[in-house]
């Protein structure tokens, strides 16, 4: 499933380092870099709350979202 990170103006946040910090079940502890569209691809096998840490320009942000396996894309705004 695609998770896209955008800034307050809706622009993709590129080359940010993303970690999943909360999930309904154990997940691989990989760090993911956002691509040119500000996107990462995560494996969602269970519905629930997913938390993300995003490191960009020397600052770490965190966000959560409720995601279901049937979702295909989630967009998160980073203020």
């Amino acid at each position, binding site marked *: 499933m695609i998770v896209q990170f955008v800034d307050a103006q809706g622009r993709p946040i590129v080359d940010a380092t993303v*970690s999943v910090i909360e999930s309904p079940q*154990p997940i691989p502890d*990989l760090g993911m870099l956002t691509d040119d569209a500000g996107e990462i691809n995560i494996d969602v096998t269970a519905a629930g709350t997913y938390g993300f840490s995003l490191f960009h320009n020397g600052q770490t942000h*965190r966000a959560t979202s409720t995601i279901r396996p049937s979702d295909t894309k989630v967009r998160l705004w980073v203020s």
Partner: protein
Amino acid sequence: MAKQKSGHVGEEDTTGIVEHGDQTMTEYERIGEIDPNQCPDTESSNSRSEESGDDTEYEGCAGLEHDAPSAESDFVTDAIHGSYDLPSVPEVLIGADNRIRIRATASYPWRAICALKITAASGRRFIGTGWFVSARTVITAGHCIFMHNEGGWVRSVEVIPGMDDATRPFGSATGTAFRSVTGWTQSRQRENDYGTIILPANARLGDRTGTFGFANRNDSFLRAARLNLSGYPGDKGGNQQWFMAERTKSVSSRVIVYDIDTMGGQSGSPVWVLQDGKRFAVGIHTNGHQSGNSATRIEASVYNRIDAWRALGT
């Protein structure tokens, strides 16, 4: 059936046999003849075999354990993650963040731990952690080198020992030869989530960094153990090494669970014990979860596989 002592001292170029007494070492029986097609521990590789290297003798790193910072043996508690509703906010840690930044990354054992910059077959980029067990053999999580949702074997991994922000005290090398086991590459079994990067013949970085030992320890030892874990967490940017230690939370036949705080990017980190001045990895960090983070346990079959990979990179 033949029995052997299980435990490899990484700082020495030994046969892999260590005699420390039964109270600290686990005996195990060798695996008998098994159809490799039926065994999840069967080796799997991306077939990009590398030369075995020149004849340079590995001089080892005896005595380097004295360089280890005292922080390693400190007992520290778990950090607590916060989570926030959208929109996201700058990081706020609830409670104490007990992770320790390692700044002396040019010293052993920290220099034997590597930041991994991974490019998947799909072109997506990831970060992870690995650790040397010989001059060219870097142990990591299986999912750092074989990604089921990103095209299988990764395209390449840049290995950067002791990275500290922009500082690369030992340079870096890019690996394209990978090995894991079919229990991971074909069956995607969590307990078989481990693998290795075999660096090119001219990239003997482990000669300069030193190596970790690794060992198969029994349940009672692990349950009482103070575990050390150090790697490159993504919430710190993935270019800084951070360390934490905690006691074991639980142990099963193939997995070790602990409350050491980890983040994405620390997959593949060594989970080690310090014993008699020697460092033995007993697990390979792979998974994160609020109920406990976990490692693939170095039990008999994992030990044997790592030892074979170690020999490939000598």
